[in-house]
């Protein structure tokens, strides 16, 4: 065995340039796959955090039928803003915090113009316990909804611009209440959103929960509980537990169900990463096939000599497979080290990206995954072996007389 290892090693060292090039291809391939998937997971994570911590929460509880309702925000399917159901939600294991909201549709007026808005009444304290990143929606020039401003409203940036209002100005909001009666209330603008998402920016209106309850004639009622969980990895367990606890009158949705488009984006992203990995794999395999074929052709006479002095076909096969395996192992190992090193460095330093259509910059932290690294090295090894199978078999099948006649 030692003889073969040493022979394989020298076979590789003989044509240093070519072996190094192949090694480099494997190293780069494995490194890029490891770093790429770590980066991808980081982006996914950032996106999920963005949704979970700034908008949708991890889980949402509604009355049965709310999500499937024809109305965008049906007020008739409502929940009490305190009592047994809320307590049951709060005390479910794995739940970190719960906040209450009312979603409603309304019109915003300033006396001369009026436009449709998507309103939300938010609990000015609990909302930020569930969605802590929400505060960053509103830049320093204003504040978010707060407990000491009963009428204080936050407007979408675009919406505010179209009305020419800034913090300190007053507008009127009109809405049809739960029982159908139309009501109007004044709001004081306290902040504008950055306008990260265009649609939201043109339609969004946020007011304190109590103000929305007054406007809609719904004292003591809300339309959704938004739930934060201790650990996102246990999301679906918590969802099942909560759903079982609340019974068939209520529905519990996860953020993926609340925002299916975003969840689709995550899936597409993982698919692209998989595609890139596959392309790299194919490139590496063809690189190794090429190297090994050239190596076999260059050594035809030598193979003939080895056969002539009594080497068996299986031994010739093993020799070339060993060379390829060594390339795969060393290249893959180096790639894994470099890929993980890059991942660790950037997970500390963070990578700042500005997603298209977003004004806010996001910091992506690639997530190192030893499992992915191991898999990448294993795949590189297997790929190198597969790639070497044909050249090695050619070498082993050679007729010694013909091989020795070759010049």
């Amino acid at each position: 065995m030692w003889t073969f290892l040493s022979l394989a090693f020298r076979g590789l060292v003989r044509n240093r340039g070519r072996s190094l090039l192949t090694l480099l291809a494997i190293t780069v391939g494995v490194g890029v796959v490891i770093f790429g998937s770590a980066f991808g997971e980081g982006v996914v994570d950032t996106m999920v955090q963005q949704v979970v911590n700034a908008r949708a929460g991890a889980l949402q509880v509604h009355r049965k039928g709310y999500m499937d309702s024809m109305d965008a925000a049906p007020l008739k399917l409502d929940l009490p803003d305190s009592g047994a159901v809320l307590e049951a939600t709060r005390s479910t294991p794995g739940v970190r915090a719960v906040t209450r909201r009312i979603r409603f549709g309304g019109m915003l007026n300033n006396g001369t113009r009026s436009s449709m808005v998507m309103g939300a009444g938010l609990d000015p304290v609990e909302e930020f316990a569930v969605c802590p990143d929400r505060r960053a929606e509103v830049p320093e020039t204003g504040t978010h909804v707060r407990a000491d401003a009963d009428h204080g409203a936050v407007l979408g940036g675009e919406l505010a611009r179209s009305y020419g209002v800034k913090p300190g100005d007053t507008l009127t909001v009109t809405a049809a209440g739960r029982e159908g009666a139309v009501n109007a209330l004044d709001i004081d603008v306290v902040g504008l959103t950055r306008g990260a998402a265009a649609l939201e920016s043109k339609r969004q209106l946020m007011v304190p929960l109590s103000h929305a309850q007054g406007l809609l004639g719904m004292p003591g009622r809300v339309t959704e509980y938004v739930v934060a969980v201790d650990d996102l990895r246990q999301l679906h367990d918590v969802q099942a537990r909560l759903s079982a606890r609340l019974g068939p009158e209520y529905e519990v949705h996860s953020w993926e169900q609340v925002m299916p488009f975003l969840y689709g984006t995550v899936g597409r992203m993982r698919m692209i990463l998989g595609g890139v990995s596959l392309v790299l794999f194919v490139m590496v395999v063809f690189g190794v096939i090429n190297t090994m074929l050239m190596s076999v052709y260059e050594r035809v006479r030598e193979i003939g000599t080895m056969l002539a002095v009594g080497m068996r076909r299986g031994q010739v096969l093993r020799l070339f497979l060993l060379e390829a395996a060594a390339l795969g192992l060393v290249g893959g190992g180096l790639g894994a080290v470099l890929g993980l090193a890059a991942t660790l460095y950037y997970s500390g330093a963070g990578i700042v990206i500005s997603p298209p259509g977003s004004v806010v910059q996001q910091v992506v932290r690639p997530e190192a995954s030893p499992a992915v690294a191991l898999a990448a090295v294993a795949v590189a090894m297997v790929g190198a072996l597969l790639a070497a199978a044909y050249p090695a078999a050619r070498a082993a099948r050679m007729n010694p007389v013909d091989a020795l006649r070759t010049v």
Partner: protein
Amino acid sequence: MPLIQLKDVHKEYLLGENVVHALKGVDMSVEKGEFTVVTGPSGSGKSTLLNIIGCLDRLTRGSYKLEDQEVGQTDFDELADVRNHKIGFIFQSFNLIPVLDVLENVEFPCLIRSKPEPRKVIRERARQVAEDVGLGSVVHHRPDQLSGGQRQRVAIARALVTHPSLVLADEPTANLDSVTSNQIIDLMLKLNADKGVTFLFSTHDPRVTKHARRVLSISDGKVSEGANDSH
């Protein structure tokens, strides 16, 4: 019992549509300890004959016995073992393994055995054989650092290290100048005389045949005893 015995051996090559009849019924035998030269012009079938005797190639028809064992139709890996244990090869173009040094090249046939002897035993024997063929001072050189004559000595050492029953040399001096050729032939004669190594050796150079104790001529695919003076 002769060491090797060929009876009515035929060898046909397929060259596209054509059949090349390289050996047309060879009868010959070699005794243990002989030093035999096969001579004949280019294309007469010397290499073909030596390849069959060396178990590198299979005969098309006839019978070939090596140490009373019929080997003409054995399977590939068994033939490989026969080559490894019973036969030593010396080629016209040396055919050393370029990445191995002199000692490693000499050891090679012993190392690839399925049950090799201990590393130290092999190394010691290789060193001894290298000494015997006059390579004592260059054992750690690579083939590309050696002269042609030295390379052929490495090949001879590699052929001898397994103590084979028969050493085959296909035009071993064709790539060497005449002085070196004579040294190589003297070395083989000496090994034959001192150690009883059996040599079968081909050449198309009639000058070389004067050294041999026994000369076979090959022409038109047939072997006959004695030097053929038509060359």
